[in-house]
């Protein structure tokens, strides 16, 4: 089985975000870049699939900076090698451009199943995976919390909102986006971290994957980065608990008008 896993480097969850200049972007200084948390479930699922069925697990990531370091961390979890697409021409890439790049790389490797995170926690776009699947002309299943593969038939449970879940099935190839609950990501052990250093990371450009200038021209422009308005200072409610409870209900009803 040739398994693919897409991971993205995103700012650590407790990073302070500072706006650059007059709102052109965010200031990269001091940001620690981690593997987007949902992608850890995809990594774990990819590693388990490869362990069970043999073959190869290949990681894919589009990005520069700490991307390669994060790919090494991913390799320590059990993948065999990685493909990094690092290209200055991709600066300003939107989700569809990123998806075109990933789809081209996945196709070139002859991958049969792909796991991705349900969303990257930087922009919370929830776009790239479904786009990759469309470009590959594969079906996709989103927000999966249970997954099984028997021969070329897979079964998945997806969280469809409203607390409802659906069990769905189909044949390979398929792209699966992973949700919490799917598995418990392992911590890499020291020998695996050492071994990951010797695994191969191919660095490619978009044009090496056969993408044209048109393919990598984005339709989405981001501007006017700003910080949210501070919430006005709140009120402490005093008194004993019985008074506090009564007063709160009054405030919610008469002042905040939310009851």
């Amino acid at each position, binding site marked *: 089985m040739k398994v693919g896993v897409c991971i993205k480097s995103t700012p650590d969850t407790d990073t302070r975000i500072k706006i650059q200049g007059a709102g052109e972007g965010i200031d990269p200084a001091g940001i620690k870049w981690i593997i987007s948390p949902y992608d850890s479930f995809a990594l774990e699922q990819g590693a388990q699939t490869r362990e069970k069925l043999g073959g190869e697990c290949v990681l894919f990531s589009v990005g520069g900076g700490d991307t390669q370091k994060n790919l090494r961390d991913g390799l320590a979890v059990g993948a065999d090698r990685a493909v990094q697409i690092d290209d200055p021409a991709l600066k300003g890439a939107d989700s569809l451009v990123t998806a075109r790049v990933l789809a081209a790389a996945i196709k070139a490797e002859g991958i049969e199943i792909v796991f991705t995170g349900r969303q990257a926690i930087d922009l919370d776009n*929830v776009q790239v995976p479904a*786009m990759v699947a469309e470009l590959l002309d594969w079906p996709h299943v989103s927000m999966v*919390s249970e997954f099984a593969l028997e021969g070329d038939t897979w079964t998945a449970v997806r969280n469809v909102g409203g607390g409802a879940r659906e069990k*769905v099935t189909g044949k390979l190839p398929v792209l699966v986006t992973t949700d*919490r609950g799917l598995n418990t990501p392992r911590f890499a052990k020291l020998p695996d971290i050492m071994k990951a250093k010797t695994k191969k990371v191919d660095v490619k450009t978009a044009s090496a994957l056969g993408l044209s200038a048109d393919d990598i021209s984005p339709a989405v422009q981001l501007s006017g980065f*700003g910080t949210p308005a501070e*919430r006005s200072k709140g009120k402490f409610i005093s008194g004993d608990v019985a008074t506090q*409870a*009564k007063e709160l209900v009054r405030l919610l009803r008469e002042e905040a008008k939310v009851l």
Partner: protein
Amino acid sequence: MSGILVLAEHEGGKFKKTAYELLGKAKELAGSLGTSVAAVVLGDAPVAELGGFGASKVYHVAGDFSGYNTLKVVRGLQAAIDAAKPDVVLAPASYTGKDAIPRLVARLGTGQGSECTELRVDGGAVVGRRPVYAGKALVDVRISKKPAVFTVRPNSFNQPTPAGGSAEVVAVSAAFGASDDRVQLVQRMEAESTVADLTEAERIVSGGRSLKSAEQFDAVVRPLAAALGATPGASRAAVDAGYAHHNEQVGQTGKTVNPQLYIALGISGAIQHLAGSRTSKVIFAINKDAEAPIFEHATYGVVADLFEIAPLLTEEFKAALKN
């Protein structure tokens, strides 16, 4: 046509709240653009009603959409877009909005702004504004290709009141093929609770690690939520400790919520928790530590032992909501 096309989602024979929210906003945007609003409806629903909310046309895609099938949804929406040729498409950031819309966008070769909380007209085009980096920043999203697609976070816009007006219903048939049946539904497992999903809930009561056990979570958080008709939520610490289900986690790696009222019981207010809840209109926090960071974001705060005050609140809410 070249106006705004709204995906009006429905369930159990009724349109979802987001359908009205989006139509109301679309009408306002279309007013400043000098264009019109249409809706797209997949499958059986009371389509005529949408005229009263500003849709001049309803593109009604026939077919069985009762079991959710991504590929059929995309095919249906594609057919409606072929017929309507809109400049702008608005859809809710629901499961469909997250699962099918990006696939549609790839098929159309255009661009998408996700989870917008504001939409405005600027320079003759619709621009979306949305939280990014877990709500620590906001950004404008412009899309240079057509149709420009935006998904909108539920509860971002007011519910319009219906006015007179009727919509022309345009029947659209989609070219479904065998390839649209590549994913088959085996079984649907309905939600155990009858309350709204966290992402759509207007009231949420969340509990943290301080609840100390699943039993106490059930005995304290859930009754308080029930008294308010609210959806229960939890911090990651509470989920990791097994007090609540992982579907109930609010935060950066849980659900992003946007309620009118968010009650946090014994939650410290870590940045990752606030990431999912900071756009709540009113936040009420109970914590025994007056220095807890949650109080910096709370509209109202009470320094108290939650085990003492929560049962009293449950009774107060029950009484208050009875009349």
